[in-house]
């Protein structure tokens, strides 16, 4: 019987010793991070930085210089040159809706590539009305101010493409609006969707004066960036990227002709 006990104790000790084995750590090299939104009418510019490594104390620039960055379009390679700000660009590279573009460069003995296609320009982008009066809040006599109807922005979207609508103040020195709840309320969302219209209530506007409504038609890889992330040790995952062997995004957008709304 003592032998049986001894065998069991030995077995347990073996289990214990095995339980103490460790995971092997592996070295991790910083990857290149690409950020590029190419669009017709704009020169192609690609910002390439390097990833911040864990444990690294932030100092100095993250921009990667000296790369040979090529964008291939219709069988032709275009070399992008680094401007003084560190961004790689090429003004002669034509950006045409419907065409595909392939980015490639070598970094840290690895070839990084990414491909995107320029979406068509959104058509029939319109908004009604084109003027908006922010209610004069503050109480007092004379009855309540009238609440403006929301603006309605519309565009064609027969193929169910993703669109992103942004508002940008174009008047220099425009004064800021105090709105209910402050900033952008729940009536306005930056998240891209596949609709062909969006209602914009007055709370979406941050500045008085002329505001441009900018409608982006975007590719799915960009829409995915809005819905990914995670910032704690319980939900951390690697974000999907269309950059092979690298990080970030290389995508194309196409912007509708801007519509201007005057906010009084």
């Amino acid at each position: 019987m003592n032998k049986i006990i001894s065998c069991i104790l030995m077995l347990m000790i073996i289990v214990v010793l095995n339980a103490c084995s460790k995971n092997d750590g592996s070295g991790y090299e910083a990857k290149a991070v690409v950020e590029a939104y190419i669009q017709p009418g704009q020169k192609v510019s690609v910002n390439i930085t390097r990833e911040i490594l864990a444990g690294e104390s932030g100092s100095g620039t993250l921009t990667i210089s000296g790369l040979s960055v090529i964008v291939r379009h219709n069988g032709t390679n275009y070399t992008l040159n680094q401007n003084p700000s560190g961004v790689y660009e090429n003004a002669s590279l034509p950006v045409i809706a419907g065409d595909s573009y392939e980015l490639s460069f070598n970094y840290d003995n690895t070839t990084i590539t990414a491909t995107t296609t320029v979406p068509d320009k959104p058509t029939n982008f319109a908004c009604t009305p084109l003027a908006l009066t922010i209610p004069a809040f503050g109480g007092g006599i004379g009855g309540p101010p009238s609440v403006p109807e929301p603006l309605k922005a519309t565009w064609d979207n027969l193929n169910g493409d993703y669109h992103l609508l942004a508002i940008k103040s174009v008047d220099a020195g425009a004064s800021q609006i105090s709105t209910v709840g402050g900033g952008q309320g729940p009536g306005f969302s930056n998240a891209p969707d596949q609709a062909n219209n969006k209602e914009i209530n007055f709370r979406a506007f941050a500045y008085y004066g002329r505001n441009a409504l900018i409608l982006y038609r975007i590719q799915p890889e960009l829409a995915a960036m809005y819905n990914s992330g995670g910032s704690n040790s319980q939900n951390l995952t690697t974000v999907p990227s269309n950059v092979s062997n690298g990080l970030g995004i290389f995508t194309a957008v196409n912007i509708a002709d801007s519509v201007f709304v005057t906010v009084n």
Partner: protein
Amino acid sequence: MPKQLLQKSAVTLLCFFTSLPLFAQQPRNEILDRTVDKVFCFRSADKELEKIAGLLNVKFNFNQARLKQYTLTKDFHDDNLATILAAICKATRSKYFIAEDNTIYIIGRRETYTPEVTLALQKAESREQVRLVYEEPKKFRVTVTGKVTDISSGEPLPNVTVMIDGQRGITTTNVDGYFTVFNVPSDTAILSFSSVGYTVSRYFLSPNKPLDSLHIQMLTSRNALNEVVVVAKKVQSFKLNQKVSMIKMTPDLIANLPSVGEKDIFRSFQLMPGISAANENSSGLYVRGGTPDQSLVLFDGFTVYNVEHLFGFFSAFNSNALKEVTLYKGGFESKYGGRLSSVVDINSKEGNKKNFNAGGDLSMMSVNAFAEGPIGKNASGIIFFRKSFRTSLYNKIFDKYSSDNGSNTPRPTNGPFGSNDQKTKSFFYDINGRFTWKPTKKDVFSLSIYNGKDKLDNSIIPAIPSFLQSSGRGFGIQITDLTNWGNTGSSLKWSKRWNEKVFTNSLISYSNYFSNRDRSSDFTRTDTSGNETTIKRGTLEDNNLKDYSIKTDVEIKVNKKHTIETGYHITYNDIKYSYAQNDTSKIIDRSTQGFTYTVFLQDKISLLKDKLQLIAGIRTTYFDPTKKLYYEPRLNATLEITDKIKLKGSAGQYYQFAKRVIREDILQGSRDFWVLADNDRLPVASARQYVAGLSWENKDFLVDVEGYCKKLTGLSEYSLRFQPTPGGLTYTENFFQGTGYARGIDLLVQKKIGNYTGWVAYTLGEAVNNYPVYGSKKFYANNDVRHEFKIVQLYKWNRFDFSATFIYASGRPYTAPSGAYSVTLPDSTTQSYFSVSGKNEFRLPGYHRLDIGVTYNFGDKGSGNGSIGVSLFNIYNRQNVWYKNYEISDNTIIATDVKYLGFTPNLTFTYRLK
């Protein structure tokens, strides 16, 4: 043979008489404490006893002729009667007992009893449960049957250990308190009954008493409130060593452990080896590397799918309503199935069968009330209600866990109109009820109902001045963040004792788990014509699980060596899960239904003169969704090497068909939901378990060590990812499949009885997963804890109970970013992203804390009684890390620790009419 037995019995009785003082096991009679100032004894013993009787106002009964032969030459100064009697008995070769009328009988050790003494002894025997009279056996090899109940409430007691004095081999009462003991040596044998939370009871068989339908009544520790000096020494707080990997606990006894707000049976189990206490915000059971959903939780026979209140900080079970809870850490028998890791079998109270009783608890977290009593002649009922209320303690826990629980609906800050109407409403409640009817001595019908719910309403209505709403047109905004979850369950059980050998238990049950979440914003606009238009944005999530079950368990005690258990279980599961966005189309709309048909057969076998107990069984399940049969052979064995040393082991196959998966949601907090396996994307999970252990136990101490190993396949994780695909961007349901293993050693050293009790528990464990989606490398599971060390110390002093618990657990694994980067998006917003090289490659700092508690018990059992308790949780304010948050600042990844609860005091008050 009968003659030998007779001699053996006589010797046993003699040993019993001579080795124990007659009243050593009994509560001390107050007359023994009466004290004399000064007595000089120098005459014959009979005369001196008469003198002492006069001085202490007590009555003696003795054989004057015999005691006259002895002369006492002893002086007593400030001595009590117990001391005096001890001296006199020693000098006169006598023993004594106190009769029912407090007369002290002094009897010669070899003296023949007179009829008067015999009668007094019999009365004392029935009162004290100590046999003092020898009887001639008339029958041998008899079968004894009966039932065990609580002496105060009449509640039947399950899992009471029944032993024959001086014999190996034990049996236990079944779920309705019935027991059958075969091959009892004679009709004068002594049976002993022991159960956690109760004093040991002994029953003396007699040729003049029936051997069937015995009614054994046991005393709880509460009954013994005023008798703690001796009786409480026999009360154990839990029982661990009865079967392989089994722990049995009585909820009454967890009341003395320190608690945060609520005494909680699941929290108490977390103090045992092999059950992790490192997840402070989860009352779920992480048993031997398993996850809470791998534990089968049965409440009066129906399956409970969610066991958590208030983000998991408390379990869904009101501990006052529970009679007994049995936890199998592994190696569970064939009658249990459908889970990989462990079983928690909960029996609720049936209600006082003798008297009406009511009571309540008040803590800094909840109010808790119950009422119980007999209903007519053969029925009883009990109902419990518990509801939380907002206090500083509730808010502290709520704020800690709600803010970090994904509750990040956009909230407008105060605008130009003043503050927003943000009235967070949150509460939980639960109701337990049970009605029991015994139409005959052999039939018991029992209806049990449970309903519990958590409601969390974080909705906000921004303050909009009335003048904006009164001109015929206007607008309204409501931000809804409403989460409800809970369970409703019911079972109707019919237990029948057909004869002394056959017992059946039939049950139909219903269980429903629901969890829904509405996180949306309603923007309502009213035009000048008064027409309202509402735009709803956000997400709606709904998980609804229904479980309809019918089952019958049959227990056949074939003979002393074989007890066969067999039965069938049929379960129909209907599980729905939907996830919708912006009140339009549903992104996920799963609906799965399926039957599970199970039969099982097992035999409990006693071999090697009852030294070896084997339980061999097989469980076979036909799972309708996969159209497959699943076989689960299981073997469980214990071998008594000596009276004190026991070897134990088990091996078995386990399958799980309904799974809880975590929906990873980056933006709004991860949520979990139940699904049925389909063997397509969601495989049936499987575990192969092996347990081996050794224990040493005497009447005071237990040392128990068990090693375990589990091999797991068909594990599932789930992710709902927003992914670019060739046809556009879609939400894709990703079920990741994986495998894993868990192994380790549990060690427990327990001081079982006495005023000072407690235990030290240590677990060395490892839980490893392998999901190809995360790479080819194995990684430590989220719940992997390498070392876990717990000390529980309890001390009883008069009416005070002191307790202290210390927990140390080595840090859990976590995923840290290997790198990070920021991207400026076209709308000029900048978003930070992190890259991950390996899952769970890092370890959080070790977790430890010390809790202490003190409880003062007042009143007496049978009249108004209760307790006042103070608990100090995390007394040295250890800042234990829950998880880490990451952000990028100045091209540096900044990690911030999110902490668990710090020092938290708590007060509780309990009162009962009886």
